[in-house]
């Protein structure tokens, strides 16, 4: 009997939405408690700021270039390396409950396992494994899937259809009649992707994910080793939490976030100092990727809309915190608490009003790149509580899981087990993280490479639809925490910039061969 692992992810959650990270809008006592007892990371960085590549990094422990999932819509090969498979082979019971998204959602041909398993009615699907042979899909012997809403092929949608069909239409429709991300606003302010959702709280996907996790844990033997990835679809848009919970954070009481310049002239001045895609998206003259509504023009967003989005997001974060509390209570009831490592993080952030923008895209700044990451090691491991400021990445999760399990870390993992202190990080040379973005949407190519190191974020652009390859961004995280002053062309930091770019280029990981194809929009 070893250490068990509860791996909790949310979707598209900012660092500053947690109380332990200084957030004031959401009450998150459960995660704050985990942070107090464990390790809180102040600079956790995703290797991609979109779902499928980032989640593939968590599963494989590889950079986007290496696992090959370069954008949403590119499926992770079914026989890709998987830390869950490593743990499964080591005797762990393995479950993935909630949002997976290693394979595209928009799949009318139902050709991907994630979209087939609920219809099959099986716990998992036998599938090819990395290195040969067959085994449970990506190493998980229990799969229960959910995403943002109640339609589609996944378990949650089928559960709603069977148990509460009257609630199917309660959710906001993420996509519109043209299958584009919906720009409609159905709240109080007209903010896109907001709706007052009349669904019962108990039926909402956050509580469904928690309950299915509790159910799975309840079926395990007391001495089973287990790895459970509990993956909440929120607080990713749509922002449509149960209407009964709106009282928690009245949007009209919400202060505007620090990252939102209230003056349009100031927003435009800041954006104009950044590479061209920033201002062009703000003005509605560029659609570079599928992840934001093409019919929505950020420049038209009002301050009240920013308030409403932040309020709805905060409510969703609170519901997740309470759901985590329920699962931890079940773990306590089973007597496992001292032998369970709990890790809480997300796949990427959300702009949430920063610079007058929402959603995500080729924008490598803190809104999307600074993530919540908490590791509460099992008490039996006797790890001291700490705050780590060294840059760590989601790529480091998989080797952390193998280390916890006492399993050899496979050579294909490219990260390092998370440091337990800054001293540990320094000793082991953990001092930089890489992030990449590649998108190609109907002839619009965008290729971005970023290094986070020495308190700076340095971003380079490869030639593409709106870049000639000479552009860049350089921000001091200490002096410019909102990343408003692009110092790429500042002669005073030219040598630093050159060093960071050289280090970035020297660190680029090997690329997947052959290049994987985009097979769906998302």
């Amino acid at each position, binding site marked *: 009997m070893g250490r068990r692992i509860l791996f909790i992810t949310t979707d598209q959650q900012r660092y500053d939405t947690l109380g332990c990270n200084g957030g004031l809008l959401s009450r998150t006592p459960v995660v704050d408690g985990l942070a107090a007892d464990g390790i809180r990371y102040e600079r956790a960085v995703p290797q991609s700021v979109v779902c499928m590549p980032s989640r593939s990094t968590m599963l494989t422990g590889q950079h986007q270039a290496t696992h090959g999932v370069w954008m949403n*819509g590119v499926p992770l090969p079914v026989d890709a390396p998987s830390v869950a498979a490593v743990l499964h082979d080591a005797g762990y019971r393995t479950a993935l409950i909630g949002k997976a998204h290693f394979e*595209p959602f*928009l*799949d*009318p*041909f*139902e*050709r991907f396992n994630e979209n087939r398993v609920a*219809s099959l009615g099986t716990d998992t699907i036998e599938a090819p494994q990395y290195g040969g042979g067959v085994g449970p899909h990506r190493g998980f012997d229990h799969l229960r899937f959910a995403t943002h809403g109640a339609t589609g*092929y996944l378990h949650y949608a089928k559960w709603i259809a069977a148990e509460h069909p009257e609630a199917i239409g309660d959710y906001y429709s993420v*996509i519109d*009649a*043209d*299958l*584009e991300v919906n720009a409609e606003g159905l709240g109080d302010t007209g903010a896109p992707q907001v709706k007052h959702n009349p669904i019962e709280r108990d039926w909402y996907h956050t509580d469904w994910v928690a309950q299915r996790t509790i159910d799975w844990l309840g079926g395990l033997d007391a001495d089973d080793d287990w790895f459970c990835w509990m993956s909440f679809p929120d607080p990713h848009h749509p922002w449509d939490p149960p209407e009964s919970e709106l009282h928690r954070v009245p949007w009209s009481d919400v202060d505007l976030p620090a990252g939102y310049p209230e003056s349009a002239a100031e927003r435009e001045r800041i954006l104009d100092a950044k590479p061209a895609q920033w201002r062009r998206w703000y003005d509605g003259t560029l659609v570079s990727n*599928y992840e934001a509504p093409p019919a929505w023009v950020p420049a038209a967003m009002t301050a009240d809309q920013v308030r409403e989005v932040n309020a709805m997001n905060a409510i969703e974060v609170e519901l997740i915190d309470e759901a985590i509390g329920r699962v931890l209570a079940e773990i306590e009831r089973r007597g496992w608490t001292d032998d369970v490592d709990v890790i809480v993080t997300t796949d990427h952030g959300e702009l949430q009003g920063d610079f007058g923008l929402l959603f995500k895209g080729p924008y490598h700044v803190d809104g999307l790149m600074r993530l919540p990451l908490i590791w509460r090691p099992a008490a039996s491991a006797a790890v001291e509580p700490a705050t780590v400021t060294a840059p760590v990445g989601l790529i480091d999760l998989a080797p952390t899981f193998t280390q916890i399990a006492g399993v050899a870390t496979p050579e294909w993992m490219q990260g390092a087990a998370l440091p337990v202190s800054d001293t540990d990080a320094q000793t082991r040379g953990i001092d930089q993280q890489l992030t990449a973005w590649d998108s190609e949407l*109907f*002839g619009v190519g965008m290729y971005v490479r970023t290094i986070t190191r020495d308190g700076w974020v340095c971003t380079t652009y490869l030639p593409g639809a709106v870049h000639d390859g000479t552009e860049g961004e350089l921000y001091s995280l200490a002096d410019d925490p909102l990343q408003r002053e692009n110092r790429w062309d500042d002669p005073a930091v030219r040598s630093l910039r050159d060093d960071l770019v050289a280090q970035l280029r020297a660190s680029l990981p090997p690329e997947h061969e052959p290049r994987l*194809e*985009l*097979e*769906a*929009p998302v």
Partner: protein
Amino acid sequence: MPVVASVRRQQIINASADDVWAFVGDPTTLPQWFPGVQSAVVDGDERTITIGAGIPLPERILTNDPILRRFQYTVTGGFFRHHLGTIDVFDLGDGRCLIAYATDAEPDVMALVIGGAAGAGLRELKRQFESGEHDDTASGRA
């Protein structure tokens, strides 16, 4: 900005253009290589395919030219306001061929949905031909 979304996928297959065309130019073979297509029923220039969850999708065959080795069709139902699918098989002159599958569609997203699946279909064709699954029926070797 362009008004019609267009997606193209292609594969070089180590098989003759005639052999590959003999297979893909037959509109009833689609379920054997296009992922998620369960059946294809052809009646004159009408083809009805059944996808994923048993949903029928009517199509009209527009071109089936064995000299050009070009097959074109349009989906006449479902989400589409406009659709044109084009499959071309080119002889590379060295015993290999290039097969290209282009999808033009409106709404734009459907070009990615169909085009993306077509890419997987072409990879499956390549696998089938290069693993010898079509050797018994290939022209000149039957």
